[in-house]
């Protein structure tokens, strides 16, 4: 046991010395930033209200319509400034002079169909924003026209809260942050094992009074330990950003089980190929396949983490337990064959 601890310390020291963990966190920070950029991008498209709330967008719309048309009211409800015009040419003139940002011309309604004209400024990045702000009022007006036509659309009233951010956070960002450390742990195992193999320091280690199993277990434990630290850190950091990971114990447990399984697999790969080049390559493609293949599981590991973290009432401990099977299998395979693999020539 003492020997194992000494070896573990040696591994951890090398990880700390090379600032591995610092880099790992930097990488994940970048990934998180990257995701938040995507989020901003998505938000801008899905949730126009966030644009008008976050920035002082002041959109003025000129409307040409019959009296009694509800469209101007819908537009006002959507935080747009509305000026009514008696005819199209005046509205157009106001638009060309920049007095209004957009013009909507509603023809006199002679049939079921209303062919509305919408004039937007060319060459203006703001037109996307204008568009997004017009979206909700236009939909309301459309439903109004449907009712006039005797068509009832169900579920048209907006209920609940805008869900895009919530879904994105829990089904993309949280699982990425929980599983990324595991991917890196796999790489760490390959790097430390193949480094000792290629630098021949492994032979020196073999002459020391430690068992082969202890050497490998120390390497894997060190990698898994970095995962534990990172995952706990992310749960805490997310909490600071008022994103609560529910079922934290199960989420962390699952992330660590997956990380340990990956570490055993990469251990086998590294011992088989013995050089970093092939081992990392095989690991990368095996990983791609595994990630893709896991999609066929229901729930997939990714989805399970997201549902646990979001507090899905239908998910519990029983969903996590099956992940022990690959863990134990890989652990047994690794311990059984590591000695043989080390001395085999490939």
């Amino acid at each position, binding site marked *: 046991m003492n020997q194992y601890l000494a070896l573990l310390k040696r591994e951890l020291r090398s990880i700390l010395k090379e600032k591995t963990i610092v880099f790992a966190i930097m990488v994940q920070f970048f990934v998180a930033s990257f995701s938040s*950029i995507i989020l901003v991008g998505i938000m801008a498209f899905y949730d126009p209200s966030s644009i008008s709330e976050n920035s002082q967008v002041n959109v003025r719309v000129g409307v040409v319509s019959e009296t009694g048309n509800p469209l101007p009211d819908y537009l006002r409800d959507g935080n747009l400034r509305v000026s009514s015009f008696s005819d199209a040419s005046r509205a157009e003139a106001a638009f060309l002079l920049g007095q209004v940002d957009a013009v909507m011309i509603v023809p006199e309604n002679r049939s079921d169909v209303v062919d509305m004209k919408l004039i937007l400024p060319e060459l203006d990045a703001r037109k996307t924003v204008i568009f997004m702000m017009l979206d909700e009022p236009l939909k309301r007006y459309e439903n109004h026209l449907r009712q006039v036509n005797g068509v009832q*659309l169900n*579920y048209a009233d907006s209920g609940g*809260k805008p869900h895009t951010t919530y879904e994105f956070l829990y089904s993309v960002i949280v699982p990425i942050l929980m599983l990324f450390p595991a991917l890196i742990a796999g790489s760490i195992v390959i790097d430390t094992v193949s480094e000792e193999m290629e630098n021949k320091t492994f032979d020196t280690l073999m002459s020391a009074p430690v068992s082969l199993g202890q050497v490998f277990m120390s390497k894997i434990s060190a990698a898994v330990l970095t995962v534990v630290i990172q995952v706990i850190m992310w749960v805490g950091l997310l909490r600071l950003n008022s994103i609560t990971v529910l079922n934290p114990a199960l989420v962390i447990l699952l992330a660590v089980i997956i990380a340990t399984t990956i570490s055993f697999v990469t251990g086998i790969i590294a011992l088989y190929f013995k050089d970093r080049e092939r081992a990392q390559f095989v690991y990368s493609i095996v990983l791609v396949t595994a990630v893709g293949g896991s999609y066929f599981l229901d729930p997939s590991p990714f989805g399970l983490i997201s549902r646990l973290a979001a507090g899905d009432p239908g998910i519990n401990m029983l969903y996590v337990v099956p992940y022990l099977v690959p863990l134990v299998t890989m652990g047994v395979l690794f311990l059984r064959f590591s000695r043989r693999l080390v001395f085999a020539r490939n």
Partner: protein
Amino acid sequence: MRTILSISKREITRLRTRFSGRSRLIVLAVVALTIISSYVIYHQDLVISKGLYTVGVTPDGPPVADQRFSVVKVERQAGYDLLRQGAIDLYLDGEEIVSRGDDRSQYAAGALQKSMAKQDLIRISNEYEVDRAFPLRVEVSYLKLLGNDGATETALTDTGALTGREEILSEAQPPAAAGAEEPAVTSMTTPSAAIAEMPGEGSPEQAPSAGSETDDVVRRQLAAFADSNQLPEFKAEFVSENEVIIPSLMQPPVPLAQIIITFLYVVPVFFVSLFFTSGFTEEKINRKLIVLLSAPVTRLQVILGKMLPYFAYSVVIIIAITLALGGDLLLGVAIFVPVMLFIFSIYLMVALTYRTFKDQTFFSVLALSVVTVYLVGPAMFVGVNDLSYISPLTLAVEMYRGESFSVGEYFLAETPLLLIFGQSLFVGTRVLNEEYLMGFKPLPTKVAQALYFIIDRNHLSTSVFFLSLFMVPVVFMVQLSSIALISNLPALFTLWFLVVISVVVEELAKSAGIIILLRHGIVKSWPDILKLSLLSALGFLIGEKLLLYLALSVLSESVFISAIFGSGLLVMPLILHMVTTFLVCLITARLGIRYFPLAVLVGTVIHTMYNLLVIGAVA
């Protein structure tokens, strides 16, 4: 050239011996498995947030087709009980969505309402004729404003900033040969002209067959809408000026295309980079590289030779992916080759600088994520913000949408990448020697050492001048990447941090060369420092202005641009750059290298104050 080829051949032989015998079979098997499984997965419906919510439904209730919801059939009373206990997130009582007050239930309610409303649209489209079910058609036209400031207008050449939705709308184009009785939608120049031609006689009563042209638009949009569970198409065709929009069929574009394109092109290169860096490191450790250098070959030939096989592979990948996605081959190559070269230049630096595998892995992963951020980040805002033209991916997105981009836009996106590749080759040839390769030192020392090798001691002034000049693209990239990091901060601090980080990076870049010379005792007296500071400032300023000139030809003036570049003046910035560089170097020279951070801080404070004054004046 022949030398380069023979070095390449040697590299390929090395790889082949690596993958010989049993391991080759295993690797091939794994690769084959991956290809087969990715093919299978590609043909699946990809649902993000699968089963995220649990919803109870009355036994006779409407079906919930959305895969985000796990559905439990449950009687009314039991359903309400489950909802109260928190065992389900929602209860769908007939056509009423019942939720609790907590956030999760409310989010679920929002999601279910949207999803059911969508299902209901398809229902009404089946039950009623198109005119009654979709009575509102909005025809969009774009007009130029009178007497707008010409500067921004000429800079823009886009076809429509609504790019995101064009993928849907492009399908909504009226057919080229429009019905004879339907002049309304086709050629419309001014809105008043169009109003004169407003349909009325074209309305369904008079044209009872599936007449109205906008009806076709509705049908087409409806078809696209009905199978929008698929990944969004980004191969849109021609996009014209006039678009017809059906409000309830408008779908928010998911910027997935940008991400997918990036990963398709970048991930395969990640695999080769592994061989590239590993090969370099291995030959570094077993000293074969040193032996190779003693042969009659130039260092550039060594680098290019080792890079060539992987570069060739990357080009093949680019061609294959572009063809598979149906893009323009020439444009695809033109857009992505510089990106690949940029990635290779990063990996070259990693391979030259690091000796341990762990470091290499991390720097490779870090580099990959930085590159992804750099590519995808700005491209998320295609059509929303002109800054998106910083990323070559924006060009790719436009290419796949069949839109055009200008030469200026191309050069803005690609020039920094190509410059950095060229510089990395130059740096590579300077540091490819035994002393640098075999040293095992921390990163700052390695960088300092590299800078020392770069500077030509016989031509100090010229070296310092060009060093600063060529630092500009690197500085630019670092500043851009910092935008990604800053986006995590509250909006209030964003601009402040951007200004400060930009300035720190600039000060470091300008003074680095001179500091190295000071450390090695090559430059001592303050007049020399002053002279070199002036040259360094001049070089940096020229680089900065060239880049600004390029940027302004594409981008309209924005606060971010002025935060990065400062103002358009010439003499003041030169004096500023010179003064700060001189101060940084002088303080370091007097107090010692340990005080370099302090010196940079002093320079930063002065520089920041100046920049804020300028931004204040501009705003």
